[in-house]
């Protein structure tokens, strides 16, 4: 973890296909945000979005790096995964669209709600993908309500 006077940054690795441990990074981020005194309603939105993104990595990618940055203005969560990528992002953003397997659905996920749910919870959300290489998402939560992102 790197800290400066006004900014905290931390890096996590998310492993693929490990359903039993899926969510551990989101738990660590929740605990960190609680420790530094972020408002609980923002923590809830941030953790739900992170958890959905983490589950996407576990289900679809080979591995991913998560970069968390917190400063007085915002929480920025960037996830870069290596994997199959997304061919049609607009389609993937539609609620109910899913390429999940039965195993994923048995775990309670894969209903095509993940990406829309991340966007719904975030103040700013961006996704880019290169098919065959991987997907990157930026999830931002404003801490200063006067800031217009």
């Amino acid at each position, binding site marked *: 973890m790197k800290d400066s006077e006004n900014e905290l940054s931390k890096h996590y690795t998310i492993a693929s296909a490990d*359903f*039993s441990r*899926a*969510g551990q990074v*989101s*738990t660590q981020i*929740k605990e960190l945000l609680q420790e530094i005194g972020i408002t*609980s*309603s923002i923590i*809830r*939105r941030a*953790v*739900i979005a992170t*958890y*959905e993104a983490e589950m996407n990595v576990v289900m679809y990618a080979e591995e991913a790096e998560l970069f968390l940055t917190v400063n007085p203005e915002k929480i920025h969560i960037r996830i870069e995964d290596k994997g199959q990528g997304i061919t049609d992002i607009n389609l993937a953003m539609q609620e109910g669209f899913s390429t999940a397997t039965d195993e994923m659905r048995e*775990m*309670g*996920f*894969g*209903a*095509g*709600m*993940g990406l*829309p*749910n991340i966007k*719904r919870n975030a103040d700013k959300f961006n996704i880019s993908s290169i098919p065959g290489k991987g997907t990157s998402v930026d999830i931002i939560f404003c801490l200063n309500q006067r800031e217009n992102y």
Partner: protein
Amino acid sequence: MKLQEIKDLLKAEVICGEDHLDIEIEFAGGSDLMSDVLAFSKPGILLLTGLSNVQSVRTADFIEAKGIIYVRGKMPDANGIEMAKTLGIPILSTKHMMYKTCGILYGSGLPGVSDIEKTE
């Protein structure tokens, strides 16, 4: 409605969190799909689910659920129970299926999550 009353109505077994039975439950929501739960829940929900893996406990933590009722007699494995104990989330298990569980609680006056106006 106290969690104790919910336990009695559902003839439920307390898996962990016996000391939480006096907490007040204001509303509930049920689904086996954690994606749906993450999308529709509100803080303070009582989560009813038939999904008993460890992700149901994690989801309950992230959505700030007050407790989990597992339907169809299900219960999480040892890891899930340990996680719930650590997080202070009470877990109950009822033999009723989802439809009947929801019906008993709703018919007894416990609102659904969609009935609640709650700002996050």
